[in-house]
């Protein structure tokens, strides 16, 4: 049993369990110590992941687990996102009695997202989705005494339960058709002409994964979670599962030959997702909810790369880079929200630039990056997306994305305008130092990923997708 191949996951798991035990023995006022503990665990996992970068891409655990560029990079992004959201947490949950367990759940959620990225077996996929979902519900509902939070949690759950049921159904049908759940064998058996049942099974699985990706038609939980969940958790939930799911989806669709017109399906989902997300965000006066909608639309952009997967060598690197840029920018935005003690009403943001220039700068940077203003990370990500999409002959998709980008600019500016142009009415209280540190880090990444994009990009271009 090649334990070495899952060292990162193991370290995350072990630290999760450790935290759980520690939390049940630590005194209440020491609970925050779990945060540094979690950071240590994530750092170790990160180190192991980096170590894996060197190795040649391979399938282990008899084809269940992929160690390729895609999964490794995705897991790195997930780990970073998790670490940053951990930084946001301790001050936020200070007075929560179950402070310590939070980190355990978060770690397990991280594990689930990582497993999503690496799964090359349909059953493994199911379990990964399940793990990240069940932890996700918990994180979303973590403010057990706060109506919005639990409401977000149960809505997340209801959508998730059906999605998983459909996923399981799809997988079972797949098994019935091909008598296997292993990607490698699937790829070899899907070649001979697809039956109608295959199409049904395929679309069921797609919906199941789309739920994790917060893509239409299973996107409905995203705005609720973004608004209701604790902002640190929302930051995590809008990023980590999405990253994993994007890779999982890419892996899955890549198995199927052209006589299943999956490109048009993915393209449709992409357009629907980015449009619905943008239209939803357009009228929002609630910043957290707006961020939720905007991250729906961002999934749509990511799907562009999946649409053209295999048509252009840059598709996969573009996807990874875009996910990375999205992750840092989105984290920065949620970080600012957290640091402002969950301030969410648009009007409450008036004059932020005067009250807290640095936070305002971070917010501006993250929003501009989400729009794709150069030379920020988001720009390079979008540029790569557009390049690969157009290169693969899907220029019309790029045009749709372009229009959506313009629309998105409007609602980002609707926030930035009061932030910068108005004067503050009341003093704006902030949370604490670690959240501030997280914000600064994210802003820094947002800038540097754009300015110094080359090393990352060059490494990403080597990334591979198995099988």
């Amino acid at each position, binding site marked *: 049993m090649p334990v070495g191949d899952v060292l990162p996951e193991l370290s995350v798991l072990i630290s999760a369990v450790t935290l759980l035990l520690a939390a049940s023995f630590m005194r209440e006022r020491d609970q925050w110590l779990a945060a540094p503990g979690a950071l240590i665990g994530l750092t170790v996992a990160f180190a192991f992941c980096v170590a894996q970068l060197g190795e040649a891409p391979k399938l282990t655990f008899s084809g269940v687990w992929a160690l390729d560029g895609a999964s490794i990079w995705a897991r790195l992004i997930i780990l970073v996102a998790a670490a940053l959201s951990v930084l946001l947490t301790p001050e936020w949950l200070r007075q929560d009695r179950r402070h310590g367990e939070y980190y355990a759940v978060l770690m397990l959620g991280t594990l689930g997202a990582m497993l999503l990225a690496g799964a090359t077996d349909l059953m493994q996929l199911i379990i990964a989705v399940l793990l990240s979902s069940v932890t996700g519900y918990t994180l979303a509902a973590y403010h057990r005494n706060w109506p919005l939070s639990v409401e977000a949690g149960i809505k997340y759950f*209801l959508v998730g339960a059906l999605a998983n049921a459909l996923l399981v159904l799809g997988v079972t049908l797949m098994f019935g058709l091909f008598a296997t759940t292993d990607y490698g064998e699937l790829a070899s058996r899907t070649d001979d002409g697809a039956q109608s049942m295959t199409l049904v099974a395929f679309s069921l699985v797609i919906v199941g994964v789309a739920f994790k990706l917060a893509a239409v038609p299973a996107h409905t939980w995203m705005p609720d979670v973004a608004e209701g969940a604790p902002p640190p958790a929302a930051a995590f939930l809008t990023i980590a599962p999405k990253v994993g799911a994007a890779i999982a989806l890419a892996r899955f669709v890549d198995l199927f030959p052209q006589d299943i017109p*999956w490109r048009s399906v993915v393209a449709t989902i992409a357009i629907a997702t980015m449009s619905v997300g943008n239209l939803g965000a357009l009228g929002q006066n609630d910043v957290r909810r707006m961020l939720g909608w905007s991250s729906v639309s961002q999934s749509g952009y990511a799907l562009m790369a999946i649409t053209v997967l295999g048509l252009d060598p840059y598709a996969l690197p573009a996807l990874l880079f875009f996910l990375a840029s999205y992750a840092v920018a989105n984290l920065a935005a949620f970080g600012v929200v957290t640091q402002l003690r969950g301030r969410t009403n648009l009007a409450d943001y008036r004059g932020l630039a005067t009250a807290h220039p640095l936070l305002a700068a971070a917010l501006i940077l993250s929003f501009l990056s989400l729009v794709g203003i150069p030379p920020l990370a988001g720009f390079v990500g979008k540029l790569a997306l557009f390049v690969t999409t157009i290169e693969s002959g899907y220029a019309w998709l790029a045009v749709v994305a372009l229009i959506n980008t313009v629309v998105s600019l409007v609602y980002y500016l609707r926030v930035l305008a009061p932030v910068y142009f108005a004067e503050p009415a009341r003093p704006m209280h902030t949370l604490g130092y670690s959240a501030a540190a997280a914000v600064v880090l994210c802003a820094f990444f947002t800038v540097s990923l754009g300015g110094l994009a080359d090393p990352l990009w060059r490494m990403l271009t080597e990334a591979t997708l198995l099988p």
Partner: protein
Amino acid sequence: MLWVVALFPLLAAVIVHASPMRNRAALGASGCGVLLFTLLLTVFAGLEGWVGRFAWSIPLQFEVVLTSSSVVMALLVPVIALPVLAYAAVHERLRDLNRLVSLLLLFVGAMLLLVIAADLITLLIGWELVGACSWALIGHERQHASRAASARYAFVMTRLGDLGLFVAAMVAFSDSGTFAFAAIETLGAPQKTILVAGLLLSAASKSAQIPFAPWIFRAMDGPTSVSALLHSATMVAAGAYLLIRLEPTLAQVPWFGPTAIGIGLGTALAGGLTAMLQPHAKKLLAASTSAHYGLMFVAVGAGYPAVALTHLVAHAFFKALLFLSAGVAGREADSFYLTKMGFGRVLPITASATAVGGFALAGIPPLGAAWTKEMVVTAAGHFSPWLALVVMLAGALSAAYAMRFVYSAYGVAVNDTSATSRTTETIAISSLAAACLALSLYWLPSIQQTLGAWLATSFPTPPPWETIGSLLTVGSGLYTGLLIARKHPALGEDGPVSAYADWLGLPFAINRVVERPFSALAQHCATFDDAVIDGIVRRVSAGGLFAARVAYRGLDRLADGLPEGVTRWLALSGEDSRRFQTGLSHHYLAFMAAGAVVLAIILFAGR
């Protein structure tokens, strides 16, 4: 090197303007000094045969030379400007006098540049500068908005003509690759046609010919000295001069002669009539200016540029003289209406000088102007005898209004009690009168010989019937004028005549046909721009939000209407029904299930 002739006054103008000089004496002296020096420069340049070349870039080459005709003009401009400026220094109000003087110098400089130009661009530059100066001079008294309006009217009207010059330059370059006058000869026939049309257009507008004439009345809002200079040697003269300078080229186009003559005669008659009906001294003179430049057009059109030139010179002197004296009378009467004037007894010198000018205007021998007018008649006669008769008629008209002006302004009248004329004014006026008298030398055959030799042409000899005819017409004209002045001194001040007195209603027509529709058009465009063009943009942006709502409503029916039908949909609160994210989990579930089906359908469709 020849550039100096034009650049010196321009530069001097800037210096004077920058200088702290504010009192009359200093300004007058310096201005006159500048003009004198310019005059000397011109003479010297003429003797030395200076030329000038200058280039902005390879295609943009400029050249200035002195031809026989341009020498005459180049001398004439400062000679006339000298007394006018001296007069201005004492006559005009002290406020802004410094600006007035420097503008006058600028005016002269620009005119000189135009005169010595040997390529279309230099010409264009001088041409437009003259226009701009005229704007500043007409609107000189800034506290009156009406003056500025008149200045604008004049400038826009003349710039409309300038476009002709632009076109000419464009044609010349597109065909020959250069702008030099020399190259114009080589143009192809069609290009030449356009070019000549352009030149004629700009000349007509500058020289206040029909239909551009009305601007010259608006120009009367400027100070008297400005009018004097503007009508005699600069602005208005430019048009006629252009035709004289380029006549050999122009004449190569068959239709040029008739057209020029047509414009000229039309203006001569219309202007003469207008002037005769005009009770306003300056406007009377202004109309007569148009008329006389019309005569010059006729001469050029008939192929006698030299004749036109000589007439231009003569006209310059007496017209400047008349304006100056009109200015004195106007100041004393505190109005330019002839009925208020009549200072023959108190200002005898001015009066007699004015008489000289007036007779010259009327074309009474032995004054030089009479000869030049005679030459015009002859030239026209060479083209066709009937033309000669019409020109005589124009002459009669000019005699008539000349008489009216002299008699009313400086005749013996009731309000002829007290009036003063400043010495410098008197000197300026009388010097000009002397010049008018001196021009009587035109009649001497020897002088005519030398002139013809100098201008490389020979003057036509008038057949006797023409001489007699014109003498008779002049006589009858004088009589008519006297009649008007005595019997109907206020003719044209009011009543139906006054309408005709303003260019026979031409400005009214222009206002109705051009100005109003144009401003209306502008307004409509602005409205359209805001309402439609920007409107579309606003719609699009609003459409975004609208699309959001519609999308929600549509999808909401899917998530909600579909399940339970409209009734159920109505059961939800209005806000919910407007948004797709109803907040009701089972809608999300339904939507997801439906979505899975849709995906499958797409897959099936795609096979």
